[in-house]
C-alpha cells in the first residue's frame, strides 16, 4: 500500500468526524500553545531583566563604603571611600574606567521650569562605566574636571522635564542657585525601575566636592573591567589595593570597610532563577499536553472499537496488519501535528501579547517551535500506537462478525 494512499485515507476519516476531531485536537492545541506561550514568556522575562541589568553598564564592579551586611553600618552609609582611592584604582591592569560618584539631591532650574533631581559629581569615565551615550553636545571632559568648571550634562528625562533640547546646549541652568553651563544631553537608556537612569544631572566631581560636599569621601566607585574574563582578577586586585590603602589586614581578622558588587554575579543569579522559572512553567504546561495526548488515545480507542467491522472488511479485502496500524497511527499523528501547529501559532501570538503588555518585548525562539512540533509528533505516536496496534491485531473473522 502506498504512503500517499495511507495519508489520504487517514485524513478523509478526520474529515468525516469533524466535531470529534476538533475537540480532540483542542486538547493538543491548548497543551502546545501553553508550552510555547509560557516558555516564550519565561524567555522574554529573562531577556527583559538581563537587558535592564546590562544597561547599567557592562562588566561593572560597584564599590561601596561599609558592609553590605549588618544593620549599623549599611552600604553607602559609611564614608571610607575617597576620591584618592578612585584615582589609585585607575592604574590597575584590566581596569578600563573608574567613576567615583558624589551624589546629592538638588533643585535644578532652567528658565521657568524646575525639578529636584539627583546631581552626581563624577569623572569622564562615568559615560563608559555606566554605559551612557551622549546624544547632544559632549560629555564631561578632563580639562573641565581639572578646572573645577561649572558644567553639566543632563539625562534625557531631566532635559524633557526642564524643556531643554538641541538649542539649549551652551545655555545656563541653575543648580542649587548656582549657574552651570549645559554642555551635553544623554541618550535615554530606558527605565530600570525605581530610579530612572535618565533623570540625572552630571557635573565634574571636583566641582561637586567644592560646591556641595566639601569632603573627599565618595558615595560609590564604579569600575569598568576591560573584559568579562578579567572580572575576578580585577576584583581581587581592587580588594588588595583598597585594603593596602586603608591599612586593613584581613589576615588578622579585620574586615573590609568596603563592599564590591559584581554585576555578573547578579546577572548569573537572575538567569538561573528565571531559567528555573521557565522550566517550571514549561513543566506545568507539559501536563496539559500529556492530558491532550490521553485525549487522543481515548478517542482512538473509541474509534477502533466503533470501526471494528470496517477493520474486518479491510483485512478481508487484503489489508495487512501494518496497513491498518499505519492508517490509525497516521490519524493520531494528523490530529496531534495539526493541533501542534495551531497550538504553536496561538502560543506565539499569546506570548507576544503577554510580552507586549508586560513591556519586555517578544522573544521568538525557533527551538521552541521545533521542540513543540517534535513533542506533538511524539504525543501522536505514543498515544496513537496502542490503539492502532489494537486495530492491527484484530482477528478478521471476529471483526467481521462485530456489530
Amino acid at each position: 500500500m502506498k504512503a500517499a494512499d495511507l495519508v489520504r485515507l487517514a485524513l478523509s476519516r478526520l474529515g468525516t468526524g469533524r466535531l470529534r476531531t476538533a475537540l480532540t485536537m483542542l486538547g493538543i492545541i491548548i497543551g502546545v500553545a501553553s508550552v510555547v506561550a509560557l516558555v516564550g514568556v519565561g524567555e522574554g522575562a529573562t531577556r527583559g531583566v538581563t537587558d535592564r541589568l546590562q544597561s547599567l553598564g557592562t562588566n561593572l564592579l560597584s564599590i561601596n563604603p561599609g558592609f553590605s551586611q549588618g544593620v549599623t553600618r549599611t552600604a553607602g552609609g559609611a564614608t571610607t571611600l575617597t576620591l584618592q582611592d578612585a584615582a589609585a584604582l585607575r592604574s590597575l591592569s584590566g581596569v578600563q574606567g573608574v567613576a567615583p560618584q558624589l551624589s546629592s539631591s538638588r533643585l535644578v532650574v532652567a528658565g521657568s521650569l524646575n525639578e529636584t533631581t539627583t546631581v552626581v559629581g563624577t569623572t569622564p569615565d562615568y559615560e563608559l562605566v555606566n554605559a551612557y551615550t551622549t546624544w547632544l553636545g559632549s560629555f564631561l571632559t578632563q580639562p573641565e574636571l581639572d578646572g573645577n568648571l561649572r558644567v553639566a550634562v543632563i539625562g534625557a528625562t531631566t532635559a524633557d522635564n526642564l524643556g531643554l533640547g538641541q538649542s539649549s546646549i551652551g545655555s545656563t541652568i541653575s543648580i542649587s542657585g548656582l549657574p552651570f553651563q549645559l554642555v551635553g544631553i544623554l541618550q535615554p537608556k530606558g527605565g530600570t525601575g525605581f530610579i530612572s537612569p535618565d533623570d540625572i544631572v552630571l557635573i565634574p566631581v571636583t566641582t561637586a566636592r567644592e560646591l556641595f560636599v566639601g569632603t573627599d569621601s565618595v558615595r560609590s566607585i564604579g569600575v569598568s573591567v576591560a573584559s568579562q574574563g578579567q572580572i575576578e582578577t580585577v576584583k581581587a586586585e581592587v580588594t588588595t589595593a583598597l585594603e593596602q590603602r586603608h591599612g586593613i589586614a584581613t589576615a588578622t581578622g579585620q574586615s573590609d570597610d568596603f563592599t564590591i558588587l559584581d554585576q555578573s554575579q547578579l546577572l548569573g543569579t537572575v538567569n538561573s532563577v528565571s531559567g528555573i522559572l521557565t522550566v517550571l512553567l514549561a513543566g506545568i504546561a507539559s501536563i496539559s499536553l500529556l492530558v491532550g495526548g490521553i485525549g487522543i488515545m481515548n478517542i482512538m480507542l473509541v474509534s477502533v472499537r466503533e470501526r471494528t467491522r470496517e477493520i474486518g472488511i479491510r483485512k478481508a479485502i487484503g489489508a495487512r496488519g501494518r496497513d491498518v496500524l499505519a492508517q490509525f497511527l497516521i490519524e493520531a499523528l494528523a490530529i496531534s501535528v495539526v493541533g501542534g501547529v495551531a497550538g504553536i501559532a496561538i502560543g506565539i501570538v499569546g506570548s507576544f501579547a503577554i510580552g507586549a503588555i508586560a513591556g519586555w518585548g517578544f522573544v521568538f525562539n525557533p527551538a521552541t517551535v521545533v521542540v513543540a512540533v517534535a513533542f506533538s509528533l511524539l504525543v501522536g505516536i505514543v498515544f496513537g500506537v496502542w490503539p492502532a496496534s489494537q486495530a492491527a491485531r484484530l482477528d478478521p473473522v471476529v471483526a467481521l462478525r462485530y456489530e
Partner: protein
Amino acid sequence: MSEPIIRLEGVSRVYDTGRVQVPALLDVDLDVAAGEFMAIVGPSGSGKSTMMHILGCLDRPTAGRYVLAGTPVSELDDDALAAVRSRSVGFVFQSYNLLPRTSALENVAAPLMYQGMGRRERLGRARAMLERLGLGDRLDHEPSELSGGQQQRVGIARALVTAPAIVLADEPTGNLDSHSGDEVMAILRDLHATGRTIVLITHDPEVAAAADRQVHIRDGRIAA
C-alpha cells in the same frame, strides 16, 4: 485432470474456549476444480461459516492442509495470508460489508489500493467494473445511498476487481428481496459462464440449485 484450484486435505478447525474444545470442522476433504460453480449447503451451526473463513484465508485450519491455486496457504503467516486474500480471493458477503461513508467507486478500488496499485489506474478499473454491473451512474454514491441490490452489486464488483482465483459468496441473497436476489444469482451465473470459480455458501437449497455441484455439510463434516 488438471490440479484443482481448491484442495482441502483432512482439514479440521477446533475452537479452544479454554475449558472445552469445540470442533467446527472435522477432517474435511474437498476439491474444487477451476471454473467450477459449487455450493456448500448446510443449516446454521453446521460449520459452513467456518468453512468459508478457511477457504477465504481469514482463518487457518487447526489440522490438515489447504492448497489454494497451488499455494499451501495453511502454512502461511498473517501477512502472507493477507497477500493471498488480496490476490486470490474475492468475498461477497450477506450483509455486503461495504466501507461506510466511502463512495461505490472507492469501495471497489479499495482491494487494489492494498495491492499497491496507483490511484488513477485502480479508479479506472473500479469504474469499468461498476459499469459492467450496471452501476455506472452510482459511482459517487455512498453505501447508505444505495438499495440492497445495488450495494450487493458493488460488493460483487469489489470481489471481481482483482480478478481473483476464487469468488466466495456467503449467502449473497440473504438480505435481498427475491427480485434483487434473482439479479445477483444471474450475475453469479454469468460470471461462471465466463470461467470464474465460484463457491456459494448458503442454507437455502433453492439458491444452491443454481450451482453445478452441491456439497452438504452437517456437524462439521461433509455429508454427501
